[in-house]
């Protein structure tokens, strides 16, 4: 009963005119930030932090939270329309989403992404309210060993993502892992493969590489001779804007599973939310009757990861609201916003700041409602954007990406690096290497290496910690099982191929 009282209190706070306005502003800015390639949530929240100086703290945090989950809605837009994932979480959305757009089904892809996000957002908000406190234990149960095993599992997901050669996919993951090694070593501070370039001292930014291998490479490829025909075709065959009955039927189970996976993984601080979207994608691909549809415009491949990343975005508030510990960089900024207002969140933040906590939880639900109301009508506008001639579209994307990358660190070198990665990505396309596993390797690499080393430091070099700790052992077992499942079909296919050849 206390829960209802709390929720009622939360809604009373969230429904005050100023907080509703803040929520709307957050949702709008979040959508905008998500849509603009390169401009990440971290940069935006950082930029908007000073504005919150003059606002009441609850309103300020409601707005910042709105930007964070609003960007998850908007992030799918560029992934689907122009194949540029703005955040690590929307990489997998680009795989099937952009294929759908090429088939003239950008409308249904965008709509299902919004619907899935809305559903996941609602469920996750309820989860935070009902189970937030007990779920905190999960966040604390994950030590370095568990995170390492989770990241291994994540890398296996990355293999499953591949639709072509498994060998080449693994090569791309390892390439990504190598790229992630650039920068300062966490334990010794030694500079690794940074060649004394100060901008490389902290490693390659995700946005830099993603804009390069996805955004710029895609543009350069589209400028090739012969590709023009293809593009004009896309522009002509845009069909319905909204998903069909069959689309909805196909997506519903995917949305449900994505929501569950995302909600669980989101709670884990420091990296859980990152793998939520491709865990969901992998699950769908494994469960599908015909996995070959994935990567070629399967609507489940959009619905599941989009639901998962939005669910994870919401549940990642749990460690912040119950422990007072920010689980990722955006949350750390929110803690900054709270400290500016003289509130330092801690384990007692729920008791000490009920207005803030419950108001924020209630506002998340309202925010999700606003976002779906904003985003569904926008689908029509986005799809119309595809009709803009490509000769005008591509220089605009180049400029937007360049500004976006520059804004992340105010570093011109990052922009040049993104250009270099654009050429690398162009080369990769020409040699049929997929960029998605590369990006995932890059995102997971540091998490995996750092946690491995932390675990071994704490265990004094005893490798058995990874199997003697039950959670870690379970994760590794799942990883091993998935790897077998991923490799078996290719082996079988090879055998069949050989068989067919010898028959013929």
């Amino acid at each position, binding site marked *: 009963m206390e829960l209802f009282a709390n929720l009622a209190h939360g809604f009373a706070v969230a429904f005050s005119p100023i907080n509703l306005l803040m929520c709307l502003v957050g949702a709008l800015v979040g959508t905008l930030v998500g849509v603009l390639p390169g401009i990440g949530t971290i940069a*935006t929240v950082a930029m908007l932090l000073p504005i919150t100086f003059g606002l009441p703290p609850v309103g300020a945090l409601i707005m910042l939270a709105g930007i964070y989950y609003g960007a998850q809605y908007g992030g799918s837009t560029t992934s689907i329309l122009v194949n540029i994932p703005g955040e690590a979480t929307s990489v997998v959305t680009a795989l099937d989403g952009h294929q759908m757009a090429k088939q003239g089904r950008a409308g249904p892809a965008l709509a299902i992404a919004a619907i899935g996000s809305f559903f996941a957002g609602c469920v996750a908000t309820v989860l935070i309210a009902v189970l937030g406190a007990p779920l905190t234990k999960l966040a604390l149960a994950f030590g370095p060993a568990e995170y390492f095993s989770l990241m291994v599992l994540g890398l296996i997901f990355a293999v499953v993502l591949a639709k072509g050669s498994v060998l080449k996919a*693994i*090569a791309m993951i390892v390439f990504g892992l190598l790229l992630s090694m650039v920068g300062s070593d966490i334990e010794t501070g030694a500079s*690794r493969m940074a060649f004394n370039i100060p901008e490389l001292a902290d490693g390659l930014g995700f946005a830099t590489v993603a804009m390069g291998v996805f955004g710029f490479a895609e543009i350069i490829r589209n*400028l090739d001779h012969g590709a023009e025909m293809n593009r004009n075709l896309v522009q002509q065959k845009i069909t319905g804007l909204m998903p069909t009955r069959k689309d909805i039927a196909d997506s519903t189970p995917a949305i449900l599973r994505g929501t569950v996976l995302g909600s669980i993984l989101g709670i884990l601080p420091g990296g859980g939310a990152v793998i939520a979207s491709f865990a969901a994608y992998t699950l769908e691909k494994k469960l599908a009757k015909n996995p070959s549809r994935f990567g070629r415009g399967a609507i489940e491949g959009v619905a599941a990861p989009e639901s998962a990343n939005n669910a994870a975005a919401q549940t990642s508030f749990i460690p912040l609201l119950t422990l007072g510990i920010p689980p990722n960089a955006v949350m750390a900024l929110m803690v900054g916003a709270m400290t500016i207002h003289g509130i330092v969140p801690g384990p007692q933040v729920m008791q000490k700041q009920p207005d803030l906590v419950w108001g924020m939880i209630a506002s998340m639900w309202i925010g999700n409602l606003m976002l779906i109301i904003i985003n569904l009508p926008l689908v029509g506008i986005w799809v119309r954007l595809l009709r803009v001639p490509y000769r005008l579209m*591509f220089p605009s994307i*180049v400029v937007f990406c360049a500004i976006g990358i520059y804004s992340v660190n105010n570093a011109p070198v990052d922009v040049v690096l993104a250009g270099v990665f654009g050429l690398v990505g162009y080369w990769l396309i020409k040699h*049929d290497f997929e960029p998605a596993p590369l990006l995932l390797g890059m995102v997971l690499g540091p998490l995996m290496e750092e946690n491995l080393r932390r675990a*071994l430091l704490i265990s004094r070099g005893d490798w058995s910690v990874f199997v003697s700790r039950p959670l870690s052992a379970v994760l590794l077992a799942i990883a091993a099982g998935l790897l077998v499942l991923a490799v078996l079909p290719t082996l079988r296919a090879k055998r069949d191929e050989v068989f067919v050849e010898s028959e013929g």
Partner: protein
Amino acid sequence: MSDTPSEAPVKSILPKWVRGPQDFVGGLAMMAVALFALWASSDLQGMHGFSFGAGTAPRMFAVLLLLLGGGVALMGVLQAGPHIAAYSWRGPLFVSAAIVFFALAIRPLGLVVSAFAAFMIAAMGSQETKLVEAVIVGACLTLGCALLFPYVLGLPMPMFPRFLIQ
């Protein structure tokens, strides 16, 4: 992304026993990347005691990539595969030039000049571009960016050339 380029096969300079040039060259390039990484991380400290040291993980992954690259190249020998697709020079050149120009110009010349110039340079990457149209759209886009980024999103970036303000 993997719709295999289906342009006419270019004249191959590779020997006949390379049956899948795309994979063969791709694998070799990965091996080159791996060797480069091995060289670049050779100055880093390796394992000492149970502590990993800075160099262990990069070298481990570099060796792994070397093996995988070798595997991909081997597939290119054993399995018939597509030829290396043709590269065009115009798109990559102008898009890269636009990016580099933007990077060089944003701090000294400001957003307005660099965004517009980058737009025009990039636009030259396609032979479909019509000059007047591109100038108009580029100007509108620049105006939009000049309002959107510094004002709506509050990003701190210079707007106009430095020597004009002072």
